[in-house]
């Protein structure tokens, strides 16, 4: 079931030689269940770092990240990524090259029964409009097909929240325009809460219900 996201005054930093250096300071964001949000800003402003913190790959130095009012990241609490029920679509798709499209989509369903898993994979392949690509390996798919398989893989375990890290940046302009619309329809059809990161104004406007603009980080 989709969940509401609350990012409450978080600080993110990396370990520099002279101690921690803030990348994002006192940042907040709220996203209602079923809504699609967008983090929009120039390169280097820290929007991908925020996304990685929500996914559980960056520690939170101050503040809190809550999913349906349950804290998943604070300076004291860190729920491991695999227990957050957060799905993610990566910029480079990150499809496992040794697994077929169907095996990639079924990767997160290892505790499901065989019949349920197969049914869910078929459902996902139908949802992305590629019912026949199941047996193919990632390198046998076009860029657009790989992107849709990555979306299906992220949606298959029914995540509470889906994160999309510049998912359209590797596509040509025509495909990008078409897929932006298609992916939005798929997410809306399944009532999925989602947060997109982009530096493309067109994507930010067309794809999301609400846009959060991040400024460039001031140079130290």
């Amino acid at each position, binding site marked *: 079931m989709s969940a509401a996201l609350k990012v409450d005054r978080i600080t993110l930093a*990396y*370990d520099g030689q002279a101690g921690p250096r803030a990348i994002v300071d006192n940042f907040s964001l709220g996203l209602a269940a079923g809504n699609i949000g967008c983090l929009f800003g120039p390169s280097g402003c820290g929007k991908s*770092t925020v996304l990685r913190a929500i*996914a*559980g*790959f*960056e*520690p939170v130095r101050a503040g809190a990240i809550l999913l349906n009012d349950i804290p998943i990241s604070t*300076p*004291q*609490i*860190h729920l*491991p*990524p*695999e*227990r*957050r029920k*957060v*799905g*993610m679509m*990566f*910029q*480079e798709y*990150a499809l*496992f*090259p*040794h697994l077929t499209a169907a095996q990639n989509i079924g*990767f*997160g369903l*290892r*505790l499901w029964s065989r019949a349920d898993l197969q049914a869910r994979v078929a459902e996902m392949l139908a949802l992305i409009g590629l019912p026949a690509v199941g047996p193919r390996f990632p390198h046998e798919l076009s860029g657009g097909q790989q992107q849709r398989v990555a979306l299906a*893989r*992220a949606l298959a*375990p029914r*995540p509470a929240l889906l994160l999309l890290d510049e998912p359209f940046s590797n596509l040509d302009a025509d495909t990008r325009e078409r897929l932006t619309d298609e992916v939005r329809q798929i997410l809306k059809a399944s009532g999925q809460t989602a947060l997109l990161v982009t530096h493309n104004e067109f994507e930010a406007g067309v794809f999301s219900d609400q846009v959060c603009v991040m400024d460039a980080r001031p140079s130290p």
Partner: protein
Amino acid sequence: MRDIRSVGPGWRLASLTIALGILVPILALLWLAIGADLSASRGRWAHLAAYVLPHAALNTALLLTGVGALVLVIGTGCAWLVTAYRFPGSGVLGWALLLPLAMPTYIVAFAYLDLLHPIGPVQGAIRWALGFEGPRQFRLPDLRSMGGAVFLLGFVLYPYVYMGARAMFATQPAHLMEAARALGETQWGAFRRVALPMARPALAVGLSLALLETLNDVGASEFLGVQTLTVTIYTTWITRSDLTGAAQIACTTLGLVVALILLERHGRKRQRFGSAQRMRAIQPVRLQGSAAWAASVITALPVLIGFVAPALYLAWESFKRMRYGDGVSAGLISSLGNTLMLAFGVTVLTVAAGLVVAWAARPMGSLRNRAAWQSGIATLGYAVPGTVLAIGLLTPALAIDAALASLFQQPGLPLMGLGVVLVVACTIRFLAMPVGGIEAGLARLPLALEQASRLLGETATGTLRRVHLPLLRPAIIASALLVFVDAMKELPATLLLRPANFDTLATWLYAEAARGTYEEGAIAALAIVLAGLLPVVLLARKVMQFENKETGTA
């Protein structure tokens, strides 16, 4: 709170144990040399410093200097010739120059001692050609000398320099050499002032590897009568049963190892010429006439001396033994079995330990992995000579054995007797190969694969099993092959740590050479060389693929 920089407590603990385990023999060695019995060790040190060390240290320094100079000249010269020129055989020689890597130093010494014997085939043929009747009228200088050792080790160890130099020359942008020529330099001047200094980091790495191998060698030096530090450690322990003295010499050798590593670091200092940009590589010039043939002869000689001649000799001797002699004895068959068993055990343990360390120390994107230092420690063993490692392991191993014996009330040395200590020694020495290989494999996999798996509900260990292990299979198999072959060839640590009545092919050969009986030694040597050819063939294939990519003929 569980730190997201860690990779799971189990992995961290296992990796930490391995890293600390590597340090145990070195610490034990220092304790033995200095701390165990201060007044006795001081007295021993005075004796060693007066009568043993000066001679052994001088010999080692001369050997290192001579071998260093020879491998630099052969390795760099041949690499430049096959990269910058085309001449008859240059294509084949490009990979054939790697072949001496399959030839352990003690085997090449073993073969040449017989081959160049005053009444052997080579000197006989020379006398026949010149019309002399006996060795009293004509003989070549004795191979059992410092000169002989430098000559043989140089012609077997030059591929370490050749490999790195070749890769550097092949990737240097052509326009730099062209700029030097346009500024008035000759071809030789451009090589000396541009290509050579740019290759310096690679030459430093290759040189230090060749010198570490020289320090590790015990068989060739002993066969050729050169009392190096390594040989002295062995004889001090085996013939005089003086463990403290052996540990003190081993510490001196360790000092040399540290000096060599520092020298290598210095050679590479502030030298990063690697370029991410793809630029036009040096295009080889076709040589004509006598220059072409001279280049062919110069580059073929190291292959002939370092591989073809000793390999043919071993094949011929083995053939004679099989055809006219008694065939293969039961003792040799059992040595082969022992060798394969040892190599298998070492491979399994080393690859497993390498996987643990490489996985625990893997890069984690923008986060600093606090276990990263452990892979640095785990790869130290490769620089420590086998004899030094063995002396360092003896004390802790004997202490554990004594504890085990009293615990189970069984007399004897359970770990030493079962060969466990030998397997551990080889694992420490060869751990750098799987750690390096698997780390390189991991570096090629995008971090997003692990993140995707974790977000799909998989744990770190589950991710390793389902995503990384299948993708790392080629890297794991390649490093397993390297470890297997090196364990088959290993001599110094095996000589010191093997259980009683346990012979491998290498120790069998060593015993034959020590007795001066060459009968079955050739078969044992040939088996080791054939096994050693496997990784060299793989390496040669890689070199050829790389070459095809560079010249666009793939």
